[in-house]
């Protein structure tokens, strides 16, 4: 599957192309994904073993309709029940699962739906992840916003009424270092009630620093928990180190962050196993850090610039819905975010069942909020997008649509204490 993602840009030098092809074709020239790079902190944690043991023994073919029915009848959902709900045997029970999920969502979140927006401040990246638009071999317009430009973007977003922001960068510590991101967080605290981060994984002391700068929530996508597949998709750069990424949420919590978010990029590997792993990652960290807030996302692959072959593959909306319902029934207290990768119709439907948070007014490009929000062409350079979004509703439209569905849109439920 991974080979269909490879695209050679005509802009690459001969040496770069050679290096790229070598990484793609010769596994022996790639580094060991389990080996930490210099400077990467290793924490003492048993969470990874617990999660991976559960995944290893997950044989979803063995579950039957009887297991699924039993799982739906149990008052609290055990790990075994959850596995049954993720299995193919549960597919015919989607409606029952949705109705149970809706009940659980209502118990814990009422009819509220939180709205936030992401802000990409830089798209430089040192990694070669073959499915990502920001990958270092992809010929795109690269950009890193200055602090002044960040402030301009934030003003435009804040003016729309948004109160929660998620700051993102490509994964380049050289181009977007921790202090640069820290300054962006400080700036964000002036304009927003809640600041989250989705950046390259860092050490505990860096998370502590970013927390002091105003970030309170850290999102790291593991992409896939299948290490063999991970190795074939993340061919170069620090992201290649799988266990360092796995422990990122725990380091963030150790550093005092209030909450952490998790996800696998569904469709990269066996999505049922990745869904199980993501949820078990949450489950075990929650047991270890019961005070922490946790949330799950559920992105599927999307087409990227220069490569439209990248698509969700075997994860169809029905399967995605099954996973989200299973997440909700197993982990009724966690937030579930559904991104603008999904269509407006899907998002409208899923917020009534399981999702509690959606993005609006989204751009995955760099420095283009004014043109996108206000239709102004500033003539300035902008940076290209990480992936194509599907639902491009503005905050105003999203707010109206959610209200119309009989749900309550919420812009902030957060307090820095």
């Amino acid at each position: 599957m991974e080979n269909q993602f490879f695209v050679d840009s005509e802009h690459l030098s001969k040496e770069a192309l050679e290096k790229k092809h070598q990484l793609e074709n010769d596994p022996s020239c790639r580094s060991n994904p389990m080996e930490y790079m210099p400077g990467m902190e290793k924490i003492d944690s048993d969470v990874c073993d617990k999660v991976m043991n559960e995944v290893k023994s997950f044989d979803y073919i063995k579950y039957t309709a009887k297991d699924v029915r039993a799982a739906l009848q149990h008052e609290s959902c055990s790990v075994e029940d959850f596995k049954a709900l993720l299995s193919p045997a549960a597919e015919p029970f989607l409606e029952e699962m949705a109705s149970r999920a809706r009940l659980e969502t209502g118990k814990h979140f009422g009819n509220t739906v939180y709205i936030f927006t992401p802000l990409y401040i830089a798209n430089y990246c040192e990694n070669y992840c073959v499915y990502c638009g920001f990958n270092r071999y992809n010929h795109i317009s690269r950009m890193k916003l200055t602090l002044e430009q960040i402030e301009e973007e934030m003003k435009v977003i804040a003016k729309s009424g948004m109160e929660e922001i998620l700051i993102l960068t490509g994964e380049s510590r050289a181009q977007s270092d921790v202090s640069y991101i820290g300054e962006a967080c400080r700036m964000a605290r002036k304009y927003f009630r809640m600041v989250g981060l989705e950046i390259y994984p860092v050490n505990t002391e860096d998370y502590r620093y970013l927390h002091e700068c105003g970030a309170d929530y850290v999102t790291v996508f593991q992409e896939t928990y299948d290490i063999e597949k991970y190795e074939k998709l993340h061919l170069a750069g620090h992201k290649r180190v799988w266990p360092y990424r796995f422990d990122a949420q725990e380091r963030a919590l150790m550093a005092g962050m209030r909450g952490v978010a998790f996800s696998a990029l569904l469709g990269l590997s066996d999505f049922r196993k990745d869904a199980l792993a993501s949820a078990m990652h949450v489950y075990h960290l929650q047991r270890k850090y019961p005070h922490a807030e946790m949330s799950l996302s559920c992105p599927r692959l999307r087409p990227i610039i220069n490569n439209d072959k990248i698509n969700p593959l075997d994860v169809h909306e029905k399967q995605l819905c099954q996973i989200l319902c299973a997440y909700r029934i197993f982990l009724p207290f966690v937030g579930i975010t559904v991104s603008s990768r999904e269509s407006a119709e899907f998002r409208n439907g899923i917020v009534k069942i399981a999702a509690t948070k959606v993005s609006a007014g989204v751009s995955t490009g760099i420095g283009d909020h004014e043109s996108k929000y206000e239709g102004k062409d500033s003539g300035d350079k902008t940076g290209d997008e990480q992936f194509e979004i599907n639902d491009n509703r503005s905050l105003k439209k999203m707010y109206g649509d959610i209200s119309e569905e009989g749900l309550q849109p919420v812009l902030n439920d957060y307090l820095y204490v």
Partner: protein
Amino acid sequence: MDKLTLGNKEFESRFILGSGKYSLKLIEAAVKDAGAEIITLAVRRANTQEKENILDFVPKNVTLLPNTSGARTAEEAVRIAKLSRELGCGDFVKIEIMRDTKYLLPDNQETIKATEILANEGFVVLPYMYPDLNVARDLVNAGAAAVMPLGAPIGSNKGLATKEFIQILIDEIELPVIVDAGVGKPSQACEAMEMGAAAIMANTALATAGDLPLMAKAFRQAIEAGRKAYLAGLGRVLTRGASSSDPLTGFLRD
């Protein structure tokens, strides 16, 4: 008149609207149909620019009961309470301190600490607590205006899972005992009132009802009925232990 006294305020109603699942319709039903005179409000939720700020929905004659949800320690709860005062939410505060995001169970130890600090600063403190008699006594000594034991986990609609322990608090504590969390049906509210609870706090039970105003009315009547039964003194069918027709002490001669 049979009134509920909290701090230096008196209330006719013994129904308090809890926080969490808000809507304009819910607040309307709670005030108009359930007769609520106190409405809880999460300070973290009021901390918004949003056009539909919950503070704007609450009628002026209703007493706000801001809560400290989101606090994980006494220190954080104190900070939130002070912010609430700054936001103009008054002197009432419901302390909620949770170190568990899964069950949202209150941390009794931290709650005692926060109660003491805030009571000393002139707040009318209503602590949400796990029904433990020793803790309730500590809360009394710390200056609480009432104690608010949970009936069952928040949002569970499971009723009085902690019934025996709430009864002990009612029997032993001289402050109003307000049953908070878990009350899912009017009959459960009525039962708690018969036991001698001073008031009921509920949210999910109303918020998730099919007909909100009708459910609000049902809660009002159930709470009033329970209160009347308590004041009337329950008949012997409900007293503990059996009574025999021949007096057990009939042998006593002088």
